[in-house]
């Protein structure tokens, strides 16, 4: 019992890491639910990596990394919107192009300077054990902002997940609320990269919400399950890192993905897989 709680009671840095992880878990589960439901995993991934050049440039200029990440995220979203609107290419292509360009730019900036060796690892994998009290305050504010915005926009977000056209017809512009959703994903990435890192924030966006999708019958319960899974993963990851001296943020994400597969296995054992066939598509008219 002591081995399970003492690390967090005796060490302030472990406690701060736990709080940071739970805050990330809350923001990621709420917005990750819509990322999973709307099939936006790729843009989530691209955002998580697309912030790299912004962070690298900010560090070079002696500015806060979070500011650089925010600029990177805005450039990413703006670029994807621009390419999608100005060409007939699918958003996948637009995201892929921006993704690879931003990642390459990040590597170019990093390689141009010798000051980055340790920092790059910190950007990619985070430094959750080094979370400061000030960082916690910023994260708490951002998490509250993400959650309250998502609750305020829950009706259009639900319509958007159900069918973007129904959102438009109901008077909620699908384009406007899609952009708002993207900005919330960006805000989550920007805030979470310092703890779990850009590479792994993506895992926290997907795995807990996806676990929720396996178990929930309502979007609200999907979010709550996501928060529980994300928080539990944080606890497991930190504890493993404390006792076995393994990388904390990577272990957190491994735990989250592990829980997803465990739940997948259990739900499949409990009920035989059902085929969800579309019976009503025969008369469907193809939309121009």
């Amino acid at each position, binding site marked *: 019992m002591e081995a399970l709680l003492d690390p967090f009671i005796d060490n302030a840095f472990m406690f701060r890491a736990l709080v940071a992880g739970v805050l990330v878990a809350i923001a990621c589960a709420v917005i990750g639910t819509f990322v999973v439901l709307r099939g936006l995993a790729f843009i989530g991934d691209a955002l998580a990596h697309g912030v790299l050049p912004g962070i690298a440039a900010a560090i070079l200029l002696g500015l806060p990394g979070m500011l650089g990440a925010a600029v990177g995220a805005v450039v990413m979203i703006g670029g994807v919107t621009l390419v999608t609107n100005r060409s007939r290419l699918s958003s996948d292509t637009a995201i892929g192009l921006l993704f690879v360009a931003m990642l390459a730019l990040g590597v170019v900036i990093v390689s141009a300077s010798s000051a980055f060796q340790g920092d790059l690892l910190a950007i990619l994998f985070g430094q959750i054990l080094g979370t400061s009290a000030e960082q916690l305050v910023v994260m708490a504010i951002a998490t509250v902002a993400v959650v309250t915005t998502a609750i305020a926009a829950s009706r259009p977000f639900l319509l958007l997940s*159900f069918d973007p056209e129904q959102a438009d017809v*109901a008077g909620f512009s699908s384009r406007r609320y899609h952009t708002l959703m993207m900005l919330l994903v960006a805000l989550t990435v920007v805030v979470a990269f310092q703890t779990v890192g850009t590479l792994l924030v993506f895992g926290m966006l997907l795995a807990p919400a996806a676990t929720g999708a396996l178990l929930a*019958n309502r979007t609200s319960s*999907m979010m709550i399950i996501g928060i529980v899974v994300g928080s539990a993963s944080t606890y497991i990851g930190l504890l493993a890192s404390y006792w076995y001296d393994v990388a904390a943020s990577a272990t957190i994400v491994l735990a989250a993905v592990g829980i997803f597969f465990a739940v997948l296995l259990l739900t499949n054992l409990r009920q035989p897989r059902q085929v*969800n066939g579309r019976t009503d598509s025969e008369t469907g008219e193809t939309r121009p």
Partner: protein
Amino acid sequence: MTAIEAHDLAIGYRGEVVVSDIELTVPEGGSLALVGTNGSGKSTFIRALVGLAPPLSGSLRVLGDAPGKSPARLAYLSQFHESGYILPIRAIDVVRMARYASLGLFGRASAEDADLVDWAMEAMAVTDLRNKPIRDMSGGQRQRVYLANVLAHRADLIVLDEPTAGLDAAGRERYMDAFAGELQRGSALVTATHDIGEAVEYDQVLLLARRVVALGPGADVLNPDQLMETFGIVISDPHAEHVGRFTIAERTHGSPQTIDTRPPAE
């Protein structure tokens, strides 16, 4: 007030005209059936009505305003729902979404909203499925839930794209009764359908084949010649008792495909 007023209207996408020269008026409480093959312009017209495809030229007034300007007074059933298959959402949540246009972002759902939702689910006989996730439903059950969503709008204009797709005979009967009731209440109704037998019941029928083939009362418009022009090949049923009993051989992309437009025999 008129529900729909179109003058010299051209509709399409990205500047490409699909149908032009549309002239029609649907009064309050009036009904209009859209009949045509796949790609004939039915869905384009419907999307123009609900504000998803702005008119290319001419004028289109919907509920006395530009299309898309009266979300709380309009209900729309599309053919596809993007993530209806993975979304963890129960039948009742889908029907409740119908009230969002009236409630806006923050409006609290009232007892009347709840009553409308219950009534709509009862009308489509999905009350027993209220807590069932739609991803676990059959295509027909899901379609009933979507139709209950349309009813729960309590709209002044209802626009349906292939509403009977996937419905069994009992479901079709429920649908017919419920939407006849909506017309009686005073709502206008526009339906895109392959079912000539259903279309003939409407006040007006618009036959489309990337142009307006004919517009008028079903009995005048739905004759073999016009249907021939719309669809390609028409076989009239010698045992048919009224004009609605046609079998249509559809000509889509050059390959004939037979569609029996009659409801399945019991």
